[in-house]
């Protein structure tokens, strides 16, 4: 059983710890291989995504399982786990072939520990021009492949790596298009469903903040840090389960028996979801050096859970078999600009089964949904979504009214109707019960009207983009 280590712990002792240095050597070797080699760098990245318009399927290597990354779905976590397993095996074999140890394991980039703010920087070995042996560093991606400031050691923003919302989720999946920890129940899905909470933040934020290759489905795997980022997302799945409190994986056969094939030829791996739920058991045989939640994050999760407790009928459990009811939605699509953009939502009276109580009853839970975000050019990599910020005020001054974040990872690909994408764009949902509770307590909650503000969360230069939100809607449960 292999141990996957925290790269920052390794780096603090030695930026070129043998695990990291062998990774760099293996990456350089894999980059030398042709794109039709199932163990080559371009092939490995194309499994996640490739632009069918740039490289038509007819030109793909025979049997290639390319362009298959599972996003916006309850398969997001298991598919990426199998993908990482395949990648780790390829690198381990390559390290051994190069004369290194035969037990190499993929390290993870834990950027979320509030006790160690420097971990929000890209690990040092990924920023160096040369390896200790003087060779060009294969872990460095320059020019348009990464946001330059990240290569210069800028920290990811604290909000980008927040675990509060994801770890506060109590269910892996839920009905009716409202996101929970692991994403909605879907069939084979490359895009289209509501984005799971962990997949949104920190996963999507880190992708767009590192930027460049990491900013899109089709190129993300070309950046060597992609694999360490996803090892951390995979680790966070274990961390979430470890919190207990009823947190558990789905038990439906549609999830457990779904299978995925990664690679082709002798090295191909075909595994069902049920085969990869215990990472210590064959065929995976790995564990993470740390799956505990840092104390400040644990406190924040408890605070988030307290704030988001049901607004009414707390003694009655939530009916999990009925989808939340839409009570309001915006009328027009709205373009996201370089300045805050406001959307008004007229809210109607609920009429569904959750409200067969006394007239004027409060909902238990309130969800905000941001639907069908499409575009090809980004104005900003991430937007903050606030509710009911007073007109003319700076939304970033109202942290307690932050509903969530909308990282634009995958917006280009999911807006593009092609072999794998219907063109639906991105859809997020946020549990805003806590925000509504605070607004209600201060007498500022208007049950008939909601104002939603999208604020670009980017310190960079202003850019002209074409991203728009199809609809903003409010759901009660």
């Amino acid at each position: 059983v292999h141990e996957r280590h925290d790269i920052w712990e390794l780096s603090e002792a030695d930026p070129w710890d043998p695990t990291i240095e062998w990774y760099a050597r293996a990456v350089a070797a894999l980059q030398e291989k042709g794109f039709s080699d199932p163990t080559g760098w371009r092939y490995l990245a194309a499994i996640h995504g490739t632009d069918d318009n740039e490289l038509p399927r007819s030109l793909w290597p025979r049997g290639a399982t390319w362009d298959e990354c599972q996003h916006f779905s309850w398969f997001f976590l298991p598919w990426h786990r199998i993908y990482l397993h395949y990648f780790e095996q390829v690198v381990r074999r390559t390290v051994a072939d190069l004369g290194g140890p035969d037990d190499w394991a993929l390290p993870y980039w834990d950027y979320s520990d509030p006790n160690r703010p420097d971990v929000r920087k890209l690990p040092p070995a990924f920023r160096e021009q040369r390896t200790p042996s003087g060779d060009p560093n294969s872990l460095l991606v320059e020019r348009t492949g990464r946001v330059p400031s990240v290569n210069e050691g800028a920290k990811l923003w604290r909000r980008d790596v927040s675990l509060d919302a994801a770890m506060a989720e109590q269910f892996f999946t839920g009905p009716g298009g409202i996101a929970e920890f692991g994403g909605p129940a879907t069939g084979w899905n490359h895009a289209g469903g509501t984005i799971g909470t962990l997949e949104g933040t920190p996963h999507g934020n880190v992708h767009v903040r590192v930027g460049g290759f990491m900013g899109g489905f089709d190129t993300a795997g070309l950046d060597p840090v992609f694999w360490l980022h996803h090892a951390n997302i995979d680790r966070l799945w274990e961390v979430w389960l470890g919190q207990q409190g009823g947190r558990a994986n789905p038990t439906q056969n549609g999830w457990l028996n779904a299978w995925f094939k990664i690679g082709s030829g002798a090295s191909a791996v075909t595994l069902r979801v049920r085969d990869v739920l215990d990472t210590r058991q064959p065929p995976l045989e790995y564990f993470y050096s740390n799956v505990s939640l840092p104390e400040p994050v644990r406190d924040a999760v408890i605070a988030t859970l307290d704030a988001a407790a049901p607004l009414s009928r707390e003694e009655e459990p939530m009916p999990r078999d009925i989808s939340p009811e839409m009570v309001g939605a915006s009328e027009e699509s709205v373009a996201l600009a370089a300045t805050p953009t406001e959307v008004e939502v007229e809210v109607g009276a609920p009429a569904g089964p959750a409200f067969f109580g006394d007239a004027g009853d409060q909902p238990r839970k309130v969800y905000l949904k941001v639907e069908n975000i499409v575009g090809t050019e980004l104005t900003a990599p991430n937007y903050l979504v606030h509710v009911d910020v007073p007109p003319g005020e700076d939304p970033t001054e109202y942290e307690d009214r932050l509903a969530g974040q909308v990282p634009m990872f995958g917006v280009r690909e999911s807006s593009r109707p092609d072999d794998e994408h219907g063109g639906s764009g991105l859809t997020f949902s946020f549990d805003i019960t806590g925000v509504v509770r605070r607004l209600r307590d201060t007498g500022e909650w208007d049950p008939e009207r909601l104002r939603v503000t999208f604020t670009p969360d980017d310190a960079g230069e202003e850019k002209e983009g074409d991203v728009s939100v199809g609809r903003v809607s409010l759901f009660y449960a």
Partner: protein
Amino acid sequence: MAENLATPGATRYGIRTRLRRFGWRYPEWWVVAAAAAGWVGMALTSHSHTGHTGTESGHLGCALEVVVMVTAMMLPLAVANVRHVALSSFWRRRHRAIVAFLVGFLGLWMLVQAGIVLTRELLTPLVGWVTVLVAGTAAAVSWELSPIKRRRLRRGHRTVALAPRGWRADSDCARYGVTTALACVTTCWALMAASAALSHSLVAMALIFGVQLNGRYQRRPSPLLATLAVLTAGLLSLVMGLPLHHHADVALRGVG
């Protein structure tokens, strides 16, 4: 009221309550029921079009065939879209939104299928039913093997933002029905042409339907498997059609 709010498992529900809860959770239930009814209709009418070409009962039979075939074979492919429409609408508009979607979806499909059946009816007396059957099967096989079909499959999965209120809500749902049907027509027209050519055999149509379902819901629908299924359907239909058309010819000669 408390019964409605309780957690499943905590209370033993009566059958009425369980049905009602099922309807809340799956507002698309009646669309699935309509498709099932369509299959019953197909089972009852799958032999009836042979030998009626050009007669008044033949026209009615063809119209019925179009309605039943589209309902049975196309509605199951749009269930996820129907669910999206229902869950994205106000509670009181859920079923109205589904109806608006179906007006667009079925409307376009019925026009297309009417054109397909009309073409069959015009060609059959000229070239014979066997030629029509072979042409329909060949068209379906060619389309299944073409890369364009695969490229368009995902478009049927698209979701769109819908206006929440008034006529714009209805028109958005209907427009979404039309765009979903357009994506569906692009991928399924040849299979539906084959269905029209093989429609005297329920088993053959069930095979074609299997190919359609596979294309809609499977991760990587195999073109070779689809081709094999279509060819089997064609062969089955040919074998089953021979005695049927023989009887129809005898009957027509008897009338003449």
